[in-house]
């Protein structure tokens, strides 16, 4: 039976004198790979410094390479080794090293915010402890990470883009205003012509109207002799929304409403996307309106 080949990190781990140190170094390399504004050689030198402090003759080259490749299986393996073999005090030391590597230049990148918190959860370090440790090492409090999925973040970090956008919009508005002015003039001319024509048409219509009224009176008399008038259009539409036929009783309407409301309630799709929830709530509103209207009518 063939065995899958051993990955570079697995080989390093198997040959290492101290698996915990190798795993710690890989996680430090991972943090270094996610630091902003640091060159490749600076990263390498920093990791070499950390490797020398472990004192097992680790070569930082392959570790840096693995961490730069987004090799999550190796990272997972390192995390498992740390969790298995680390005592509480040693875990504290690992966290200490991780924070030091992440905040050498005083700033913490957004990605490292999440990586440090992941390590803290992995090593069972409480939020308060992490904050104290971070404050001691970095000299600044560990705030919540900023959120680049929000408009406000980009307004703060890329104001140039918004200035350009505002300029573009102002130009568009000016062009639109000019167009609108030209259109208004043409409109006025057309209106004057229309008014003349309308006056003529109205005279003709009055004559027609007179004749039609007479006819309608005759029709109404005929209708009254038949049965009562059919239900108005809106009631039919409301019944259709609830999936009912023309002659539905009050209890049938209530039953249909309950069934439809359960089927289309927005809470049913709560776990799906916001768009789905919005669509469901639109459907639900329509059903509820139809029901309210029918209850008033009956």
């Amino acid at each position, binding site marked *: 039976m063939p065995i*899958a080949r051993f990955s570079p990190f697995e080989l390093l781990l198997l040959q290492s004198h101290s698996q915990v140190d190798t795993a710690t170094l890989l996680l430090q390399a991972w943090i270094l790979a996610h630091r902003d504004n640091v060159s490749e050689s600076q990263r390498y030198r920093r990791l070499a410094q950390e490797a020398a402090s472990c004192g097992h003759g680790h070569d930082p080259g392959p570790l840096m390479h693995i961490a730069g490749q*987004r090799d999550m299986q190796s990272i997972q393996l390192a*995390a498992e*080794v740390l969790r298995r073999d680390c005592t509480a005090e040693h875990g504290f030391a690992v966290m200490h090293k991780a924070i030091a590597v992440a905040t050498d230049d005083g700033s913490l990148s957004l*990605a490292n915010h999440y990586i440090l918190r992941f390590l803290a959860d992995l090593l069972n370090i409480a939020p308060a402890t992490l904050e104290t440790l971070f404050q001691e090492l970095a000299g600044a409090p560990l705030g919540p990470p900023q959120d680049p*999925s929000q408009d406000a973040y980009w307004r703060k970090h890329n104001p140039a883009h918004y200035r350009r956008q505002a300029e573009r919009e102002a130009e568009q508005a000016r062009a639109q205003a000019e167009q609108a002015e030209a259109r208004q003039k043409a409109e006025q001319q057309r209106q004057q012509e229309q008014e003349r024509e309308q006056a003529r048409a109205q005279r003709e219509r009055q004559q027609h109207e007179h004749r039609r009224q007479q006819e309608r009176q005759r029709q109404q008399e005929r209708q009254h002799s038949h049965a009562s008038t059919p239900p108005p259009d809106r009631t039919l539409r409301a019944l259709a929304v609830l999936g009912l036929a023309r002659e539905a009783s009050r209890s049938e309407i209530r039953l249909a409403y309950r069934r439809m409301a359960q089927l289309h309630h927005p809470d049913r799709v709560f776990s799906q*996307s916001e768009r789905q929830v*919005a669509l469901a709530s639109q459907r639900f509103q329509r059903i509820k309106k139809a029901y309210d209207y029918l209850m008033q009518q009956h």
Partner: protein
Amino acid sequence: MRDLYQRLSLSPDATPQDIRRAVEACPNRALQQDAEAVLTVNEHRANYDTLHTTVSDIGQLRARLGLGHGAHWQGSVANDFAYPPDDGVGQHEALIGRVGHAAAHYNRWQRLRGPWLVTVAIVAAVCAGFAAGLALRLRLGTG
């Protein structure tokens, strides 16, 4: 940080046209504004995508290590980047299993005198080659 792609029912490698369409169809005003500011501007999107990749990697890691409900994993990140744990064994366990397998293979190879067998096979192959060459030459010579 929220997963805007998931909230708009998009895949992270959606084309700019798809994104534009989804943003315009979005019924939530606040989300629409944020998605327009982040995803429809190339520079912002590239930046957001880098962080999105890292955070979703961390989400996967947490799911696999059973850290999906950690004290440091709260709010919208934990909501949007929570994945179901896949049923693979841990990497460390898998590594130990493979090392064990490799050792067993090696032992069997040694027990069967694998190196000797290989040497004998090579010598036999060389002799056969010589014989075939000799026969061919003889036939050519007689013919």
